[in-house]
């Protein structure tokens, strides 16, 4: 479903050169949750933006459902639901208006939008605040609304960039539970998060990034074998402390 081929991107800020992605490749199948993990500044967000076609890669490409994001960005965007930590809500619109607006942007008819809103507000428990102006919502409510917004067109692919940032335990629990549901419905999901315990539980496979390079990859067992550590938190600390980890060979 998702195929990432040798994505590379370097930023130039005056004299500084920042390698945000260096030849990163991976695939995500339907029904799979791929955890793209790494410390801050590892290049995860850049990766997601390139996959979505918001950012032009220097090299390589991303393909979603057979469409390359650099050639047919609109086709790709149609297939993807995108939630990011920075995703805001329109403060002068109500939740329902915002969902309706995005539904129509993604080409849904009015009745389709209505049904979807009904479904989503049941699962994500939006009904209490959906007719409120977005400016009055709490962080958790906003984040749930963002998720609903990304799911309004029922996309086969989800890209979630820190969807639980700023949420309390219960709030993030709702999101992770929903990711489980999405997996059961055969969605392909790329998940970026710092909540490693939940990631460990919900993801099928992982890609650990550091300084723009993918340094570890595989299922939890693969990672445990490669590093000799039992959980992701330890692997993470190890990763940051041993700065000079050589990038793994792509198979």
């Amino acid at each position, binding site marked *: 479903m998702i195929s990432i081929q040798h994505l590379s991107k370097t930023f130039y*800020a005056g004299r500084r050169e920042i390698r945000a992605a260096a030849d990163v490749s991976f695939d995500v199948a339907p029904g799979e949750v791929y955890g793209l993990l790494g410390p801050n500044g590892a290049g995860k967000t850049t990766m997601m933006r390139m996959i979505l076609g918001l950012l032009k890669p220097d090299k390589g490409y991303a393909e979603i459902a057979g469409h390359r994001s650099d050639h047919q960005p609109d086709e790709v965007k149609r297939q993807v639901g995108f939630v990011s930590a920075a995703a*805001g809500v329109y403060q*002068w619109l109500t939740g329902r208006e915002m969902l309706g607006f995005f539904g129509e942007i993604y080409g849904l008819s009015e009745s389709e939008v209505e049904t979807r809103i009904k479904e989503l507000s049941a699962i994500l428990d939006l009904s209490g605040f959906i007719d409120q102006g977005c400016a009055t919502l709490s962080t958790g409510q906003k984040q749930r609304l963002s998720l609903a917004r990304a799911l309004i067109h029922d996309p086969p692919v989800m890209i979630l960039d820190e969807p639980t940032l700023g949420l309390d335990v219960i709030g993030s629990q709702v999101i992770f539970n929903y990711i489980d549901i999405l997996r059961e419905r055969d969605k392909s999901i790329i998940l970026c998060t710092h909540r490693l315990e939940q990631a460990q539980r919900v993801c099928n496979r992982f890609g650990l990034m550091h300084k723009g390079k993918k340094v570890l990859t595989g299922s939890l067992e693969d990672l445990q074998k490669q590093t000799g550590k039992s959980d992701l938190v330890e692997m993470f600390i190890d990763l940051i402390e041993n700065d000079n980890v050589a990038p793994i060979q792509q198979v």
Partner: protein
Amino acid sequence: MSQNDNTKPNGNPKKPTRTGFRLTRLAQKELKETLRDRRTIVTLVLMPLLVYPTLSLIFKTFLLSNAALFSGAEVPELRVVYSGNVSKAEADFVFAKIGERVKFIDEKSSGSEGTLLQPDNLDEEDDSQSIGSGLRVDDLQSEEVGFPPWYLMRWQFIPPSANPSLAEYVEVGEADLGIIFDLNDPTRKRLGDFTIVSRQDPFSLAAADHLAKELEKANLADREFRLQMAGISIEPVVNVGRKLIGETVAQEAPSAFPLASLVPLILVLMTITGAVYPAIDLTAGERERGTLETLMAAPLPRVGILVAKFIAVLTVAIFTALLNLIGMFVTIWVFQLDQQFGGGIFDFRVMVQIFLLLILFGAFFSALLLAVTSFAKSFKEAQVYLIPIIILSLGPGLMAMAPGISLDGVNAVVPMVNILLLARDVINNEVILVPSFVAVISTLVYTYLAICLAARIFGSDSILYSGDGSLVEMFQRPTRANVVVPLAATLFCLVMLFPLNFLSIGFLGRLPAETTADLSFRYGMMGVFTCLAFMVLPALVARHQNTSFRGGFGLKRPRIVFLLAAVLLGLSLWPLVMTMTEGWHAAYGILFGSEKQEQWHAKLIETTSEQVARIRMVSPLVILFAFSVIPALCEEWFFRGMLLRSLLKWNSVWKSILISALVFGSFHVLSNSVIALDRLLPSTLIGVMLGYLAFKSDSIWPGVILHSLNNGIVVFLAYYQPALSSYSWFPGEDESIPVVWALVGLAVATTGVLLTRFAGTSGLPGKSSNATIESGEVL
């Protein structure tokens, strides 16, 4: 949410028709969002409610204190330019003296109403008053036209060496009259000789008569003074008074000039105020709140999103304009200010026209605002960018308020100034068709360009995810070498050309008189400025951008075939351009009547022959450099070197060539003080030709050859025209060129084009930079 949904893409088969619908939805959403924001409502509703009553109070005070100035019958304004053999200060002193004398006579004649004789029934025309000298005052009044007296005319000093000269001012209608004076030593009894310069139209001629009479008054007053000094009684033998029969007609409204210009300015500024907030909010604001990325992640074209935002901002601007218009008219009505406006303001048609102009202006300014705010990362940053823009826009606003400025020449294409002047003319009911048309069209073009620019900036990944945006970063020299100069740096150069141009005009005007007499020095300085602006500045910028001259300006050696094509084209384009100009003249005649066309043509020939006469005073070698070699080299260096090559990197070939040609063409139009629209088309077409040649040959040198040959031939044909004409090798000044010449030119030029076309671009030395250009074709 069903299982089988997963494999089926959600793309709608009716995608193309739905895009329009989705964009409409987007625009609706943007508008809904903006209108729910109470800050929008503040500018939208509260401002007009508060601003106009306050302003009207200020007006009232202003008008009352100036009532004396404006009292009296409405008189057409008379703009007089003066020049002579003394400094401005001395001239002004003498003119003030004359003014005093004229005033003395005026007061005397108006104060002597009905003293001795009072005939019962005096026909006004035959009414006459005599004063001591025996000269009839009536001879000195120009009642029918009602020109202002000497001391209320609008004077402007033109230094004798100025360019345009005093005569040119009068000729193009910048002034109604001119006075050239030769003042003798001011201590002597006689002031000097005055020559009145007027043009051949009834107004100017009548004004000249009036001015002559005013000067006569000065003589008259002087005579009286001297008689008085000599102790001779100057009591008139007969004193005639006047009596008016019938009702007293209400005094005419005072001159409408200040308010008629103020109304559009205030409306325009208020429209700007309305558009500013939504423009920031929908771009930088959205970006700050994080909703912009969400929107960009939706399957909508970027341009579409921008256009939707533009529509929303424009709608708010239109609302603002409408509310302000209503607010202003209600205020005028309530405070009875309409009497100061000379009537017309309550005409419904005037209101509608002003509203339409505000929509046009709103469109332009909304696009401009979006281009700027799209650049900003946060609300604050956008505000910081907009403050100078708004302050800068006050400049044209005040300029349009200046007395005596009219909607013609360059003014018709200066953004904002043209709309303000047009609105003023609408209120004064003085709309002139052609410049108004030019004003509207040029504003539409600017709007389109601003939208294109905004679309380019809006949501581009370099803006969306750029660095810290510090000044240091902006001016840091990139470590990587650029093959061509980055477009932003090229645009910087283009923008800098504008003030540099003014600087050079100012500098040349400031040159001491002794040096300006020697025209070769002047032309030399012109050449220096051309080099500085078009060559040195771009070179410095390219250096700073770590770009090699060879790649950035296309300096490599071209293939011989391109040089051949350049020579053919350089030799053959001038008869085509001349024919084209004549065609344009004919079209002008058809559009505006043959009389106008003849006037215009005569004017053109006169200015041209004046220029040519000046050129002939200088050695041909200087002319060769000043008009052919230097402009060719410098303009190719910038337009086909830096600009075209930068454009090609980001645009398709023909788009780049067209843009560079249009910039080139407009530059040639603007370098003239009159809108030389007849130059736009030929210059742009030559620009296209030069661009094509530069693209195909991947070098500027063929262009330099073409350009200098073409310029050289044109200027030397003019230079040697008398000789050439006397051998009948060239038509005289007033004749058109033979059709055969144009046909031969066409044939040779076509050969040149075909040579270029089929020469191919491959196999060139230094293919690396060529590859960049060809990749531009794909992008």
